[in-house]
C-alpha cells in the first residue's frame, strides 16, 4: 500500500519535512529567513549555530540589515543659555516626553563605553551607526558602536599633534571596516594633507589633497557625509567663492571640489545641510524665503544639482499655527530656520531654529514637530551640525589586544 517514496518519508523523524527543506536551502533563501528575525540580538546569537552561518550573518545579513536599518534620532550640540555651557544630547526620532532626563539615556549609554568623560568638543562625528571621539593633546581617537557596546581605541599616531578635526568614513553596506580621516591644518597652502586610519589594516596613511581647504578650521563644516569611498564636506566663508563641497576620494587618494547649487544666492556665511537620500548625495539650504532641497546627479564626474523640493517659509508660517503658541514663540523669526539633517531613507527634511526641530514631508506637504527644547536650552547649529543616528550591528575590532583575540574568523 505504501509506495517506496512514502516509505522513505516514514523513516525520517518528526518534523523532518521542514528540516529536510531547510537543510538544503540556497543561501539567498536562508538570508531572507534570517533577515526576518526581528530581534537583532537573537540574529547575532545565531552566529553560534555553525561556522557557515557565522560568516553568512556577518557578510550578508548584517550589511543587508544596515542598508535598511531604521533611522533612530539625532545627536546634536546643545547649549545651556544661562551658563553658556555646551554639551552633547540626543533627540529620538519619535517625540519624547518633555520631562526626559538630560542628557538623554542614549548619550549616557555610549559615554559609559569611553574611558574618559567626553566633553562637548570631544565628540567629532557620527557615521552610519559609529561614533568618533577624541581625547588629549596628542589625539587619542575612539570609535564606539552603541549597539554592540564596544569602544575601540585607535592606535596613536604621534605625528598627529594638535590635529583633532576628524571624520569617520563608514558604510556597513559596503564593508565592515571604517576609516578615521584627520584634516591637517598646519600647512596653510595646498597641497594640504589628511591622515587616514584604516580599521582594516590597523595603520595610518597620509593623503595629500590637490587644493587647499584653507588655513582655518572655521571654514569647514564639522559634519562630513561618506558615500561610496568619498568623504563630502562643505565649506563656508564670507567669500562667496568658497561655498563648495569638498570631496575626498579615500580609495583613489585624490580630492576635488563641487560648487554648491545657486551658490551666489546662498547665505554666504552660513551652512546648509548635506545628507544622503537612498544613497544619493543631497543638499538643503535656505534660498531667499524658501527651503530648497537638491539632489546631486552624476556625482562621480561633473556633478549636477537637481532641485527636488522647495518649501516656502510663508507656507510654514501659515502651517505652524497648528502647533501650539509656545512653539511659535520659540521659533523666533521664521527666517532663522535652518536645515538640520536629511532622512537617510525617505524624503524628509529636518529643519528648525535654536528652539525646535521640525520635519517636512514633501510627499504630502506635512510639517511635524520633532522636538522642542526646554527653557534655557538651545540646539546649536551652523558649522556644528546635527548628526542623524542609525544603529548598526557591526562588531568593532579591538586594536589594543589584537594578539589576544582568537575570534576573528
Amino acid at each position, binding site marked *: 500500500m*505504501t*509506495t517506496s*517514496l*512514502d516509505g*522513505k*518519508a*516514514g523513516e525520517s523523524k518528526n*518534523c523532518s*519535512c*521542514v*528540516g*529536510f*527543506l*531547510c*537543510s538544503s*536551502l540556497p543561501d539567498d*533563501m536562508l538570508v*531572507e*529567513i*534570517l*533577515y*526576518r*528575525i*526581528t*530581534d*537583532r*540580538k*537573537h540574529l*547575532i*546569537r*545565531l*552566529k*553560534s*549555530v*555553525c*561556522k*557557515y*552561518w*557565522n560568516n553568512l550573518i556577518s557578510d550578508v545579513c548584517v550589511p543587508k540589515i544596515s542598508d535598511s536599518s531604521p533611522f533612530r534620532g539625532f545627536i546634536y550640540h546643545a547649549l545651556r543659555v544661562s551658563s553658556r555651557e555646551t554639551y552633547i544630547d540626543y533627540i529620538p526620532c519619535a517625540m519624547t516626553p518633555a520631562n526626559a532626563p538630560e542628557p538623554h539615556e542614549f548619550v549616557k549609554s555610549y559615554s559609559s563605553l569611553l574611558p574618559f568623560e567626553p566633553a562637548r568638543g570631544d565628540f567629532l562625528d557620527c557615521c552610519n551607526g559609529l561614533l568618533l571621539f577624541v581625547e588629549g593633546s596628542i589625539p587619542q581617537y575612539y570609535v564606539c558602536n552603541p*549597539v*554592540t*557596546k*564596544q569602544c575601540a581605541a585607535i592606535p596613536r599616531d604621534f605625528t598627529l599633534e594638535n590635529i583633532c578635526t576628524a571624520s569617520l568614513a563608514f558604510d556597513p553596506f559596503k564593508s565592515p571596516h571604517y576609516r578615521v580621516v584627520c584634516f591637517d591644518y598646519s600647512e596653510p597652502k595646498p597641497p594640504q594633507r589628511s591622515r587616514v586610519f584604516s580599521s582594516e589594516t590597523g595603520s595610518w596613511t597620509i593623503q595629500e589633497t590637490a587644493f587647499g581647504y584653507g588655513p582655518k578650521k572655521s571654514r569647514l563644516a564639522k559634519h562630513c557625509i561618506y558615500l561610496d569611498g568619498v568623504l563630502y564636506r562643505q565649506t563656508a566663508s564670507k567669500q562667496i567663492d568658497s561655498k563648495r563641497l569638498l570631496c575626498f576620494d579615500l580609495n583613489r587618494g585624490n580630492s576635488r571640489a563641487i560648487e554648491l547649487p545657486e551658490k551666489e544666492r546662498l547665505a554666504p556665511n552660513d551652512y546648509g545641510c548635506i545628507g544622503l537620500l537612498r544613497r544619493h548625495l543631497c543638499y538643503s539650504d535656505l534660498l531667499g524665503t524658501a527651503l530648497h532641497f537638491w539632489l546631486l546627479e552624476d556625482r562621480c564626474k561633473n556633478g549636477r544639482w537637481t532641485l527636488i523640493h522647495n518649501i516656502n517659509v510663508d507656507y510654514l508660517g501659515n502651517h505652524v499655527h497648528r502647533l501650539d503658541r509656545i512653539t511659535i514663540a520659540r521659533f523666533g523669526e521664521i527666517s532663522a530656520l535652518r536645515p538640520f539633517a536629511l532622512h537617510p531613507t525617505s524624503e524628509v527634511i529636518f529643519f528648525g531654529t535654536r528652539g525646535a526641530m521640525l520635519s517636512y514631508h514633501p510627499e504630502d506637504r506635512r510639517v511635524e514637530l520633532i522636538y522642542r527644547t526646554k527653557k534655557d536650552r538651545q540646539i546649536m547649529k551652523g558649522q556644528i551640525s546635527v548628526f542623524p543616528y542609525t544603529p548598526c550591528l557591526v*562588531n568593532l575590532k579591538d586594536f589594543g589586544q589584537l594578539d589576544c*583575540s*582568537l*575570534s576573528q574568523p
Partner: protein
Amino acid sequence: MSSSTDSPTLTTETTQLSPQPDTETAQPTKKITLKSSDNQIFEVEEAVAMEFATVKSFFEDSPSSTDTVPLPNVTAKPLSQVIEFCKEQIKFKANPDEAQKKKYHSEDLLDVLNQAVADRIENKSVEYVRGFFGIDNDFTAEEEAALRQEHAWAYEGVDED
C-alpha cells in the same frame, strides 16, 4: 487609494489558466490527485497542480500518467495551505487587477514561507535552531566561547538556554 473600479473580468484567453473553481458549469477540467507524506489525498485541478514544480516534472516525465502524485516532503496541513495559495495565485494571474496586485505581491508564497520559518526560529535557542535545520555544530568549545565573548552585547538580558 481609490484606484481602479473596474470589476475583474475573465477573458477567453485566460480561461485555460483560471479554471474558476467556484462554478461547475465550465467544461470539466482535468483533476490530479496528490498524496501527502501522511497519506492524505488531495484532488486538485490540473492548473493548480502544475503550480508545484514537483508535480510538473512528474508529468513531464510521464505525460499520460493518471497515477496519484506522491509528495513525500510535505504533510497534509501545509499542503492544503499551499494548494489554497496556488488557487489564489492562479486567480490573480488571470486578473492582474491593480488593487489585487498590491495585495498578492506582498503575499508572495516565498515571503510567506520565509516569514513562517523566521517565526519558528525567533527566540529559539541555538540548539533548537541547529536541530530544526539539521545542522551540526562545527565550532570547538573555545571558538564558540570566543564568538560569544565577541558579541557579548547580544547575550545581555538573555537567560542561559
